């Protein structure tokens, strides 16, 4: 395992966020950490990055104790925070002075990703829009070739074209040795990108399954059949008919709707989780 969290307890003064959270993250995956605002997604990422410390329990990331923030650890784990801060420097100079800290940084990868986002590299960071700054940081994060890439709401502030480019860039960024965790409340942005869905609420893991397992177990279907609608675990009516989540008894493949899955977990989590029990 790349990340092992055991019995994690965390609280901000009086507000408890996690009480006994357990989670394992393996290399070779892009994890989608989904949940509403304020449910602990960012807190979890900051605990993994060593910016917040567990009050109880253990976090093991690549064999390191994150709270020690050892240079080796910081070279191998990169957190892209939701709120950005970039110094008032020309882009190229900032990349130059920052990249020297990451032994596996690839300028070629950075330039390629920046070109994909059509980013102007001649300007200054402080003169760029929020979205452009975010894209610069995404490119930099990828170019560090960190083993664990933690991204907190990376699609916030990105336009539609950039979101699609983001999915494209990220899909090519994962290999057998690294792991990417993307936290978002904009579930749609991660469709066709993540291969494991982890839904978190009130500091608890409500749902944690691979996309393959979801595909094998659940069927997403648009239906007009009242009988089928009645048998659905979750349904939503729209002008096109009823969007349903059904148990997949036939092994039929269907296009997953992450947003609907998310809502189903929030409303009928226990029933849904039962289907995944062997």
């Amino acid at each position, binding site marked *: 395992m790349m990340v092992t969290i055991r019995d994690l307890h965390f609280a901000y003064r009086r507000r408890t966020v996690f009480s006994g959270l357990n989670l394992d993250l393996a290399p070779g995956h892009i994890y989608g950490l989904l949940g509403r605002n304020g449910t602990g997604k960012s807190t979890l990422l900051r605990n993994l990055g060593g*910016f917040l410390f567990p009050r109880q329990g253990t976090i093991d990331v690549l064999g390191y104790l994150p709270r020690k923030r050892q240079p*080796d650890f910081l070279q191998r784990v990169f957190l892209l925070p939701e709120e950005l801060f970039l110094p008032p420097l020309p882009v190229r100079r900032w990349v130059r002075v920052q990249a020297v800290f990451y032994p596996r940084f690839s300028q070629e990868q950075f330039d390629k990703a920046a070109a994909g986002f059509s980013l102007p590299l001649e300007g200054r960071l402080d003169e760029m829009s929020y979205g452009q700054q975010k894209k610069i940081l995404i490119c930099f994060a990828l170019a560090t070739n960190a083993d664990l890439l933690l991204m907190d709401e990376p699609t916030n502030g990105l336009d539609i074209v950039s979101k699609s480019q983001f999915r494209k860039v990220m899909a090519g960024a994962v290999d057998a040795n690294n792991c990417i965790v993307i936290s978002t409340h904009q579930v749609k942005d991660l469709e066709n990108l993540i291969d494991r869905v982890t839904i978190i609420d009130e500091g608890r893991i409500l749902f944690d399954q691979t996309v393959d397992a979801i595909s094998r177990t659940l069927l997403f279907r648009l239906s007009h059949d009242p009988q089928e609608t009645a048998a659905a675990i979750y349904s939503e009516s729209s002008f096109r008919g009823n969007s349903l989540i059904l148990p997949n008894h036939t092994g039929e493949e269907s296009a997953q709707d992450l947003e609907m899955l998310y809502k189903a977990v929030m409303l009928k989590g226990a029933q849904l989780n039962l289907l995944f029990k062997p």
Partner: protein
Amino acid sequence: MKDRSAVNQTFSMDRWAKLMTLHWSVNRKRYLLAIPAMLGLLLVWEGFIVIENTFQPLDEGFQSLTYYVGLYTVGCLYASTIFGEFDIKAQGIVWLAIPASSLEKMLCGLVYSAITFFVVYTLAFYLVDIPMIRVVNGLIKNGHRTWAEGQPIDPVPVFHVFNGMPNDYLRHLSSLYLLFYFALQSAFALGSVYFKRYAFIKTGVAVAIALICFMTLQQRLIEQTLPQGWHRQFFYDWIIDGGTLHVRAVRLSPLLGAILGPMLLYGIPVIFWTATYFRIKEKEV
């Protein structure tokens, strides 16, 4: 669990040099603007005194006052921003995420705020002061200036930071002022990690409270335990019947003074910078 507590994870000269370069790159503009601002302020202030004082402007005492007021004010103000990244959560995360150890980050702040600032400020002071003293001495000589009683006014020497104060009996105070500056400045650097906003004001208040507590404690604890009529004088002396012909004093042994003195003088910055290191290490954002 990998505990890479080898020296390389605590300090690497190569990594520290990169951190120093990064700090310079990010703050270069601010620093390069601060130097002419300091020079300008010193020039305007000393120029104003030269115009206003028609006898002996910028004597050594005045130069030292100018030097120390500037050093204390600007030095502490700068130190209170040296770890100002923690003012903003996003900036704090970026700073803590830089792959360098807490010791390297602390040493980077120390070198810029304590050493580099002191050197740059002192150079800036002399860059203004030496030409101004030449001007002053030219005015005294060419204007045949005299005191009100008709005595000629002596040329003004340039104040020497490391040679002590102008009056002989105050000479030892110069090094005390400098050492106290480094102690105070290190307290402000610690304040920049401790306090999220308004670090300068909050540290100033904290230092004032600490000094008041220290003095009250001395007054309450030590003075009240002394025999009737005895008083404490400075740190090492206790006297009775002070100001009379029957004055008697008890002094700590020279050996104890020799140990306690340097500990007080040199130890405070070491204590505060060590506290800063641990605070950076344990900082959460």
